[in-house]
């Protein structure tokens, strides 16, 4: 399935874009998505860490994504 990713901070720089479409397997988990990202964009491996938010909530590695979700890549935050 094709999903759309929102990217911020350094993730946006890695994609060269704030929105990136990516093809993943049906019933893709966050863990699968992270692996896919690292294999397609090896620079993700250089980050201190990155989280995935689904519909504006942080979700764990076993969370299964759906095409209707709003999915965002959250590199290490640095507000304040």
């Amino acid at each position, binding site marked *: 399935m094709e999903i759309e990713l*929102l990217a*911020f*901070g*350094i993730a*946006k*720089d890695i994609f060269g874009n704030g929105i990136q479409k990516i093809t993943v397997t049906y019933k893709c988990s966050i863990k699968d998505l992270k692996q896919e990202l690292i294999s397609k964009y090896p620079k993700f491996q*250089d*980050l*201190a860490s990155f989280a995935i*938010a689904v519909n*504006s*909530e*942080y979700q764990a590695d076993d969370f299964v994504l759906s095409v209707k979700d709003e999915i*965002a890549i*959250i*590199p*290490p*935050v*640095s*507000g*304040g």
Partner: protein
Amino acid sequence: MIDIKLSPETLNLESCNVFVADPAAGAIVNFIGTVRNETKKQKVLRLEFEAYEKMALSEMKKIANQALEKFDIKKIALHHRTGVLDISEIPVIISVSSAHRKAAFLACEFIIDTLKQSVPIWKKEFLENGEYWVSATP
């Protein structure tokens, strides 16, 4: 009880204090974050803040609600800037009112510490030798 704001405009301390004012309060504590002119012995020229706005607002609201549960406080204003900020400008204001000062001091510290860990806002430092997303790489 809580006033959350994410704005590209200059933050206003007075409006935060007006919001948290309460007849039952004996204290208002403010935390004001300001842009420092150096980092790791390098001169900082300016900062730029980017936010995942919808989620940043919901995370800020969560933190404020946690603070209200955790501490004996009255009201909270939590305002954060986005966009380009020069040295000495204000990226964040936290105002907390409480009956007794200690709770408001503790709540302010809890709110800024938690915000820095979980709110999806990113800071880019513009230094003399280039620009870097803070904390992005180890």
